[in-house]
């Protein structure tokens, strides 16, 4: 904050001698000084450090020991890591298509609705504004066995067998994923609506004059013109599902055991990183896991750039 006034005042005569162009350059760097410091110290330096830590064995108490790629070798041989990697992949490949298709169907129809349009949009959008940690507890309550849980009570009312949900190794992951999809849906609907709005009406009119059926209009006009929106949402939600944490932590924590259960059935990569680093204080191993996460996210970002360029 003080830099630019200091430069402006103390430089007195020197300042007067500068051309307008040179003054501009001074101002620009003065404006950028604090931010450059911030990005260097809080973004770039830690990024490099994460890679460095990933090559060490370090418990924060004793000095780090360089171990080369040993952490990555350990990762490849760790069955928990592969389980976690598979879980993370499941969150992604179930979460992204389900939420995108739901959001598109809702937005496509909502776009044609005039009666109470704003109100219905608000209903879908509200969950997006909630705190994931808080909503995880609401859903956790829904999943409880009878007589507490809403879902099991509904099933009982319909005469269907009780489901273990969060206590089952097969049902727990989708059960945790559901509130994540629920909370993100409203955002995607709103973005799809904006994308649909941006398509010029003349395209539709022309198609209708040509007598194209609705389905053909959807396939030949709406979807191709929505491609940038779709790519944005695929990448945005993929990154979100790959980084899932709040819901898992809050829905599967037990007083007796670490979150991520039962038997690691719901544990995503970020939770494994959290536990390795801040429960076991195995910093090097945790940093190696973050490098894996980085590489996965990098692939997705590069894929996005590639897809957008093909447009």
């Amino acid at each position: 904050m003080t830099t630019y006034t200091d430069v402006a005042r103390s430089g007195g005569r020197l300042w007067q001698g500068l051309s307008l162009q040179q003054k501009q350059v001074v101002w620009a760097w003065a404006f950028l000084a604090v931010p450059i410091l911030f990005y260097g110290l809080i973004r770039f330096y830690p990024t490099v450090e994460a890679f460095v830590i990933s090559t060490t064995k370090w418990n924060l108490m004793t000095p780090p020991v360089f171990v080369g790629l040993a952490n990555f070798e350990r990762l490849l041989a760790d069955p928990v890591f592969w389980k976690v990697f598979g879980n993370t992949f499941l969150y992604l490949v179930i979460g992204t298509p389900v939420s995108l298709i739901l959001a598109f169907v809702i937005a496509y129809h909502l776009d044609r609705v005039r009666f109470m349009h704003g109100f219905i949009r608000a209903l879908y959008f509200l969950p997006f504004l909630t705190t994931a940690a808080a909503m995880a507890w609401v859903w956790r309550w829904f999943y409880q066995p009878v007589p507490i849980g809403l879902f099991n009570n509904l099933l009982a009312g319909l005469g269907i067998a009780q489901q273990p949900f969060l206590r089952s190794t097969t049902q727990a992951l989708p059960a945790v994923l559901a509130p994540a999809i629920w909370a993100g849906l409203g955002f995607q609907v709103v973005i799809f609506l904006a994308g649909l709005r941006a398509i010029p009406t003349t395209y539709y009119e022309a198609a209708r004059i040509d007598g194209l059926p609705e389905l053909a209009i959807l396939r030949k006009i709406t979807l191709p013109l929505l491609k940038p929106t779709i790519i944005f949402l695929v990448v945005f939600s993929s990154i979100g599902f790959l980084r899932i944490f709040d819901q898992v932590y809050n829905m599967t924590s037990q007083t007796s055991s670490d979150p991520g259960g039962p038997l690691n059935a719901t544990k995503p990569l970020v939770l494994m990183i959290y536990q390795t680093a801040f429960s076991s204080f195995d910093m090097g191993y945790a940093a190696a896991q973050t490098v894996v996460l980085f590489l996965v996210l990098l692939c997705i970002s590069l894929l996005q750039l590639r897809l957008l360029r093909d447009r």
Partner: protein
Amino acid sequence: MSAIASPVSGRIEPGRILAWLLLFGGGLLMVTPLAFMFATSLKDSSEIYDLAFFPAHPTLDNYVTVLSDGRFLRWFANSFGIATAVTLSNVFFDSLVGYTLAKFQFRGRYLVFIAILSTLMIPTEMLVIPWYVMAKNFGWLDSYWGIMFPGMMTAFGTFLMKQFFETVPNDFLEAARVDGLNEFAIFWRIALPLVTPALSALAIFTFLSNWTAFIWPLIVTTSKELYTLPVGLTSYAVEAQVQWELIMTGAALATLPTLTVFLLLQRYIVRGVVLAGLKG
């Protein structure tokens, strides 16, 4: 608004009514978890086992219980203060950098832009370990500054603001320059007021993401007085065990502020989120 894209005008068809009903029903389903949360927060403990949606004897006792020991109020204040401070910092610095990158000509501009943009590729989770080590070395662990420092500026916000400042005509700035305003005054008094929609979008997004932030506050804080609302709620819920009506009350308290603000400023917020989502 929807008149623009409405393909069929005037006539009401049965299919459209069915679609409307399904959309409306789906919308109600979306808010059901929230409705149950609020309804249960108004029930007393004997009532939570019967699944009647409406409490037979609505009571605010749970709110009194949850708020009485002062912890929730503290967490509430922490979250509010932190989210506000981080939002102000982002609004100021992200626009300053965005403005500089959009409106100044100097060598290195493109490099700075690419460098800042490239930080978008780095997931927060990769940085938490180095941040933790850094906070430990500087004595920032378990402090407000420790919670706030990683988010004081964002590449996302900078990019968003740069996009908007590019639409500000240079003539405006030149005119101010001729009038003898210094460059900071031009930014502050001329350029900034021209991009208020972007500023509010950035403010909404930053506030919301800090209000709901979980993993970093969870890592960096250990004393309960410094918890943010989501972290506090987690510790409270674990403690309350099976007292679901109290957990629902806590969850309702965490959710109420954002929902209230949304209901008051709905249009503004939806537009802001779309702006931030599409331009950012």
